[in-house]
């Protein structure tokens, strides 16, 4: 594992537009140094999730320090879990995190930009459950 590599982030959303918008926002807030790859919608562009899109996104996000996957809603988790059950073609470590979608991905991306390892990046995403806006 390259110690200088940043953790990559993959956003799995039922909506391609939601995944793309969230990825753009997180990337800009964190200064653009971390790969934040959207994997939204089905293969034919509808609402839903696609294992093929998620797999491509994981490979694109990988910089050698692991990839954290942030799902938007529960059923995106099923797609990711099915993919991770057979990880032989995936770079490692690839982890799925239980976090609020936009807050989680922003916190994870900023933490990754500071050079944190995947455990710390995951922890930042999970802590987002406790962040208040007001």
């Amino acid at each position: 594992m390259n110690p200088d590599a940043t953790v990559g982030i993959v956003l799995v959303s039922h909506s391609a537009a939601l995944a793309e918008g969230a990825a753009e926002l997180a990337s800009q807030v964190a200064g653009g140094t971390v790969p934040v790859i959207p994997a939204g919608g089905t293969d034919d562009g509808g609402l839903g999730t696609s294992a093929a899109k998620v797999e491509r996104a994981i490979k694109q996000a990988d910089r050698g320090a692991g990839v954290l996957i942030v799902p938007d809603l529960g059923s995106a988790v099923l797609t990711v879990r099915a993919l991770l059950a057979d990880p032989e073609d995936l770079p490692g470590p690839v982890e799925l995190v239980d976090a609020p979608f936009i807050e989680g991905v922003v916190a994870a991306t900023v933490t990754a930009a500071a050079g944190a390892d995947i455990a710390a990046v995951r922890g930042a995403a999970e802590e987002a459950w406790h962040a208040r806006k007001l």
Partner: protein
Amino acid sequence: MPASSEQVVTQVITLTGDLHARPAGQLAVAAAKFDADVSLTVGDRTVSAKSVLAVMGLGATSGQQVTAAATGPDAEPAVAAVVAILADATAVGG
């Protein structure tokens, strides 16, 4: 000379613009690179400068005073980095 690991540095800055998402991110990335604990205080609220969500949650606006404080071996450069970002970024917004 004793170990400087307990060094505490504090600096107050008055914001010239609102603290928006991008400068908050820049600030958290910068703060997280230091070993020191780095905090921001606005009014009676104090948050970790290393948490982008907490920094954004401060809702700090133009004209407010922000106290940057750091505790640790690299407290001085940590506070300097955070204050520089607050000075620059809030002038631009975003």
